[in-house]
C-alpha cells in the first residue's frame, strides 16, 4: 500500500517525526497558556482547572489523542536512533564534527528521554493526584520542594535544547528552507525554546524563591 510504503521510507519516517513534533508543539502552546494562570493567583488557576475538568469528555479525548501522538513520536524517534546507531557505530578512528554548536542536534534522543521521564513523573504527580486536595494546593506544595523544583527546571532546559534543534529540523523536513525566511527561522530556534523555558521553568522558580508566597 502506498501509505505504508511512504511511512516506512526514510523520508516518511522523518515526516512522522516532524508532524508529531509540530502537534506536540501546539499542545505545549495550549498547556503553557493554561499554566500561566498560576502567575495570576491560585483562584484563577483553580478556576481554569475546574472549568477544564467540568468537561471530562474533552479531557479524555484530548489526552488520548495526545498520548497517541506522543507514542508515535517517541517510538519513531527511538527507532530512528537505533537504525542510525547501527549504521554509524565504530566507523572512524578519528571523528571530527565540522559544524559548530551541534550539542542540541546530537542530544535529541537524550533530551527526548529526559522529557519522557519528566512527563511520567508529572502525570503521576498531578493528573493522578488525590482528588481531595485542590490542584492549586498540590502545585504549590510539590513545586516549592527543592529537588522536585530542580527536576522540573532541568527537564525544561532539556525541552529547550530539544526544541532548539527540533523546530528548525521540523521545518527542514517539511521542506521549508528559503533565504527569505531563514533569518526569521534561525531567530525562532532561540525565541521559541526560551519562551517555553521562561514560562514553564518560571513556575517552580516562582514557588522556590518565595515570590509565589502570596499565591
Amino acid at each position, binding site marked *: 500500500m*502506498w501509505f505504508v*510504503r511512504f511511512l516506512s521510507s*526514510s523520508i516518511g519516517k522523518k515526516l512522522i517525526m516532524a508532524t508529531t513534533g509540530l502537534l506536540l508543539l501546539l499542545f505545549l502552546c495550549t498547556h503553557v497558556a493554561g499554566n500561566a494562570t498560576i502567575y495570576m493567583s491560585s483562584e484563577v488557576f483553580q478556576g481554569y482547572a475546574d472549568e477544564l475538568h467540568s468537561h471530562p469528555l474533552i479531557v479524555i479525548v484530548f489526552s488520548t489523542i495526545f498520548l497517541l501522538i506522543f507514542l508515535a513520536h517517541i517510538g519513531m524517534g527511538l527507532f530512528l536512533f537505533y537504525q542510525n546507531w547501527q549504521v554509524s557505530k565504530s566507523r572512524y578512528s*578519528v*571523528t571530527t564534527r*565540522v559544524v559548530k554548536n551541534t550539542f542540541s542536534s546530537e542530544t535529541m534522543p537524550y533530551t527526548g528521554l529526559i522529557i519522557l521521564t519528566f512527563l511520567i513523573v508529572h502525570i503521576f504527580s498531578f493528573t493522578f493526584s488525590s482528588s481531595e486536595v485542590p490542584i492549586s494546593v498540590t502545585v504549590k506544595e510539590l513545586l516549592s520542594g527543592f529537588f522536585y523544583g530542580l527536576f522540573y527546571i532541568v527537564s525544561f532546559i532539556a525541552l529547550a535544547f530539544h526544541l532548539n534543534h527540533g523546530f528548525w529540523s521540523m521545518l527542514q523536513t*517539511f521542506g521549508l528552507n528559503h533565504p527569505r525566511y531563514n533569518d526569521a527561522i534561525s531567530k525562532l530556534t532561540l525565541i521559541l525554546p526560551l519562551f517555553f523555558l521562561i514560562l514553564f521553568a518560571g513556575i517552580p522558580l516562582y514557588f522556590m524563591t518565595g515570590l509565589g508566597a502570596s499565591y
Partner: protein
Amino acid sequence: MSSINLTLKIWRQHNSDALGNLETYDLDNVHTDMSFLEMLDILNEKLTKEGKEPVAFDHDCREGICGMCGAVIDGVAHGPEKEVTLCQLHMRNFSKGDTIVIEPFRSRAFPVKKDLLVDRSALDRIIQSGGYVSVNTGGTPDGNSLPIPSSNAELAMDAAACIGCGACVASCPNGAAMLFTSAKISQLALLPQGHAERQQRALSMVAQMDEEGFGNCTNAKECEAVCPKGISIRNIARLNKEYLFAALTEG
C-alpha cells in the same frame, strides 16, 4: 617552497573480506606545494622501492571535477580545507611534524575494496533508478525557446555541480545519502525538462537510496560543511517536498 616531514597513519586493508588496520609511515621532505594525492604518490614510490605494497586510492582528473578521489583526513572528508576535493587539497594546510590519519570514506553502502578505495556504485544505482530524463526532446532547442526563470536556472546549475564523490555520505553521522540524492533530484525538478517524470523520479530514487542501506537524515548539516562543491541542504528540503508531493499523488 618549503618542505615538511609528516607521520601518516593510513588504513590498510587487503580486500573487502580482510580485516584492516591503521599503519604508520614516516615521510620526509614533503613539499608544501604538493597536492595530497601527490604526497601519497611519493609515499607509494617509497613503499615500492622498499618492496612493500603501495597504498591503493581512487583518483582520475586530479583537478577537482571528476569525483573519484576522496578520503577522510583526521576525521574530515576531503580534509581541512573548505570546498575542495582531496586532489585539490594542498600540503600547505599541514605543518611540520603533523600526524595525519587517513581513512577510507565509510558507510554501510560503501564496502572497502582495498586500503582507501571504496565501492561507491550505490550512488550510481540511485541515479540509474531515475536520475535522468528519458523523454527524447530532439536536438538542442533554440535559445530562449524554453523560458526558464534565471533564479531556477541558477539553482539547478548549483545542484548540478555535484560530482558524486560521496563525501556527504562519509561525513554524515548517520551515513545518509540525502545531499547527493537531493542534488540529483533538484537539478531536474527545477527545470521544465525534468517535470514529466518528476514524481516517479522522487519515488524511485528515494526507494533505491533506502534499499542501498544509507542511514536516515537527522539534519546534522555535516554533509553541506564538507561538500567540495558547496551543495546546500536547501536541496534536501526540496527533496523532502518532492517526495511528500510524489507519495501523496503517485505513491
